[in-house]
């Protein structure tokens, strides 16, 4: 099931270039992605929800997502909810700074000491929220960070979703065209396991599709019917 999107926590930072707090948000996200919770987190650039395609907009449908904003405009939180799906949690750096009684961060380009302190506080809170979203305390076994920080991300690339989007398929349900995330990889998973369209498999297929897609309760029967039909067709092809 190589194409199946992994269940990782998505982190989206506002990256606000006009404020030091935006830099704090970005660097805190990088610290979690690279050092505190590597392998358990993934990111995407916020603007891709608008500038990208359907596979980019599916990001927060597939990954439980935590947003990190620099200020109370909450561009990342609002943008993610509007164009992808509601984040499971949201952080605002300026609120965290006030909560911890830290001095105001300064320096969009090069953070002052207060800014660096804010990065650490934000990163630690973010890591705790990642654990909460994944349902365990601390980094998962096998994904423990190195004892020493990896060095400011120098020479590394974080797990970025751009260019490796989740496959999306359009189907017609109740006369409406609907985009379903990861439909084909889900079908492939069952077919690779030698499963055919029996009653138990159809039920499991639908349950898995629901994990990755928002199925409106009122339309669940229609969704089920279409997904079953698509799976049967895939098995016959």
């Amino acid at each position, binding site marked *: 099931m190589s194409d199946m999107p992994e269940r990782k926590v998505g982190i989206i930072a506002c990256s606000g270039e006009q404020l030091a707090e935006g830099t704090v948000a970005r660097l805190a996200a990088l610290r979690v992605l690279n050092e505190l919770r590597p392998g358990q987190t993934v990111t995407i*650039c916020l*603007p891709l929800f608008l500038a990208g395609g359907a596979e980019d907009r599916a990001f927060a449908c597939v990954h439980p997502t935590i947003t990190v904003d620099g200020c109370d*405009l909450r561009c990342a939180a609002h943008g993610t909810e509007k164009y992808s799906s509601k984040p499971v949690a949201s952080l605002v750096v300026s609120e965290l700074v006030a909560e911890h009684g830290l001095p105001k961060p300064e320096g969009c*380009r*090069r953070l002052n000491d207060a800014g660096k302190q804010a990065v650490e506080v934000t990163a630690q809170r973010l890591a705790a929220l990642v654990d909460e979203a994944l349902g365990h305390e601390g980094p998962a076994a096998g994904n423990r960070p190195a004892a020493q920080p990896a060095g400011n991300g120098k020479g590394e690339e974080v797990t970025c979703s751009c260019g490796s989007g989740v496959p999306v398929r359009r189907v017609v349900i109740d006369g409406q065209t609907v985009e379903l995330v990861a439909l084909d990889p889900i079908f492939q998973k069952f077919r690779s396991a030698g499963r055919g369209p029996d009653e138990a498999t159809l039920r499991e297929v639908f349950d898995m599709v629901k994990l990755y897609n928002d199925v409106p309760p009122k339309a669940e029967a229609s969704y089920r019917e279409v997904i079953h039909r698509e799976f049967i067709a895939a098995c016959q092809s």
Partner: protein
Amino acid sequence: MPQEATSSPKGHVVVVPCSGIGKPFGTVSREAAYEICENLCPGKAQIVALAKLVLGDAEARSAVSSTPVVSIDGCKRACAATMVKQSGGTLIREVSVLEAFRQHKDLKPEGIAELNDAGLKLARVLAEETVASLPRAPSAGPARGENHE
């Protein structure tokens, strides 16, 4: 001859770098934007955060629609240029960090949170070339603050 879009009557420009977080090229785009606004054209160029355009923030939309814009993108997805266009802005330059790197292969950027020296130099070169290429360069003259060499 068609008239090329120029910077505003007062020579001001808005600079919109990409929000790239996954690769060093995104960091280069931001560094170049700061170089233009802080060192090459202080008082004449201002950054507008891309996230605000995603949100549809009225102030940000007004800034890009009333002032000529330079976008700086770190990857081929070109989010900055796309968002400026979608927000009703007029681009006078669509700068690509990848293209700049192709022209300066010796300056390979590494590091996301903190660029290596080559990345910082690529950002500075890109910023200087961008300012020099503007129809009416809004330069306020050399006012260098930081020197990364």
